[in-house]
């Protein structure tokens, strides 16, 4: 097995299997280093599908959207004499991608990053003043979990924190981005190296609906070929999936 693992998570019926297939095709076309590919799903039908656990579903209350993503951070420790860690996910270097992304450049870039800390998307298109204003209302998170890069073990702390606080997290936070924004990324911190989560550099990842970098490069629905990944995040509202599909082949 390769050391690098690229994965996505699919549940429910918002996105059909064709989105997973299309993401897989995009990865095949845009990743020049060896990798494993997995999809964590509630309905496994393919060899690369892994069954999502259902243990947290009893807390489901319409809030805490996309919490199933956290299952990819679960790691089972076994007897260290027989190997340091074991989990259903093979590999040591992980790159998570949402299903509604367009990959524009070689994903090798993400596997060559300095991995002192795990990475998540910073919404460079956000006005930080709006993020600060809405922080206490659990809205407008500065970070976005559409793309996450971590090495084995780095996200265990987050998984443990979620596992220990399921009832209060599901009750309080509308999305996992709000949660991560409250606990693992301090937008007030001037020295970003002190944050648990690192962020991808400005211009690496942009938003189709919101823009690239606030306030100078904010034109929505504009193709930016120089960026590595384009997100179709639309604040939790239904994405214009037809628009995404129309761009798959361009």
């Amino acid at each position, binding site marked *: 097995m390769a050391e690098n693992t690229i994965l996505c998570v699919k549940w429910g019926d918002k996105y059909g299997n064709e989105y997973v297939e299309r993401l897989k095709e995009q990865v095949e076309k845009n990743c020049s280093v060896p990798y494993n590919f997995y999809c964590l799903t509630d309905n496994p039908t393919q060899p690369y599908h892994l069954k999502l656990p259902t243990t947290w579903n009893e807390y489901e209350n319409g809030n805490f959207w996309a919490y199933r993503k956290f299952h990819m951070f679960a790691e089972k420790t076994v007897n260290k004499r027989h190997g340091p860690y074991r989990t259903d996910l093979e590999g040591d270097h992980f790159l998570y991608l949402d299903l509604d992304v367009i990959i524009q450049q070689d994903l090798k870039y993400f596997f060559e990053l300095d991995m002192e800390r795990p990475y998540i998307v910073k919404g460079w298109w956000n006005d930080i*003043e709006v993020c600060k204003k809405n922080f206490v209302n659990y809205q407008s998170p500065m970070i976005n979990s559409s793309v996450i890069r971590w090495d084995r073990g780095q996200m265990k702390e987050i998984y443990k924190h979620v596992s220990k606080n399921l009832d209060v997290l599901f009750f309080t936070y509308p999305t996992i981005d709000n949660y991560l924004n409250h606990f693992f990324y301090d937008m007030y911190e001037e020295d970003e190296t002190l944050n648990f989560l690192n962020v991808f550099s400005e211009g690496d990842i942009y938003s189709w609906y919101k823009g690239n970098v606030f306030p100078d490069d904010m034109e929505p629905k504009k193709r930016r070929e120089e960026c590595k990944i384009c997100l179709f995040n639309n604040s939790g509202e239904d994405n214009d999936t037809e628009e995404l599909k129309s761009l798959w082949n361009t």
Partner: protein
Amino acid sequence: MEYLKYTPEMARDWKNAINSLDGYIEKRVWDSMNESQLVSKLWLVEEMLNLNMKPINISLLAGWFAQYIVPLLYDNFESIESIENFEMDRNIKSLAYKFNTRYKKDDKYKIRIKNIMFANMLGKTERHDTVINCSCEHMYPMSRFRELENAGMDNNEALYILQSSNDTQYDDHINCVKSADELAEQAKLVEIMYAGERLLPNGMTRFMVIGR
């Protein structure tokens, strides 16, 4: 309790605070100073007086700018030695100090930025005898807070004064209640000293319970 004493010291602090208002925070400050805010804080102090309470060290949870409640408490209870406001919104800190500079200078008022639902908020040697939370509608039920508190303290006998609302129109009102009883149940209070409700000028019903 019918009024808040507007003293020269308060006038100085409030003028300094209001002079520093900028951007969106200005609207927040005015929201925090409306008629209903004052009515609910006057009601709280009135019931504390009726119960002949003698608070000493008060933890104020999610106290926001605390420009009404801090002076109301100090003006009406000679027993108080300190009030600490536990907030998770960093943006309010400097302004909340400005409104209460006179107490901060005397080391009688502090603000700590903390999410109180995830860890015991006090250090091992710190104690409070009274917990006031006028923002229960903004957070997970208070039973969680009490579990965290009790885990970190022996013989925790703190008195809880809790307010909440039935006003569901705001996204951040994630835990509205329909009665004072429901509020008490959420906090798992077993000794209820007061439970009541009041229709506020803004049309919402406010509920309050005092107990252990």
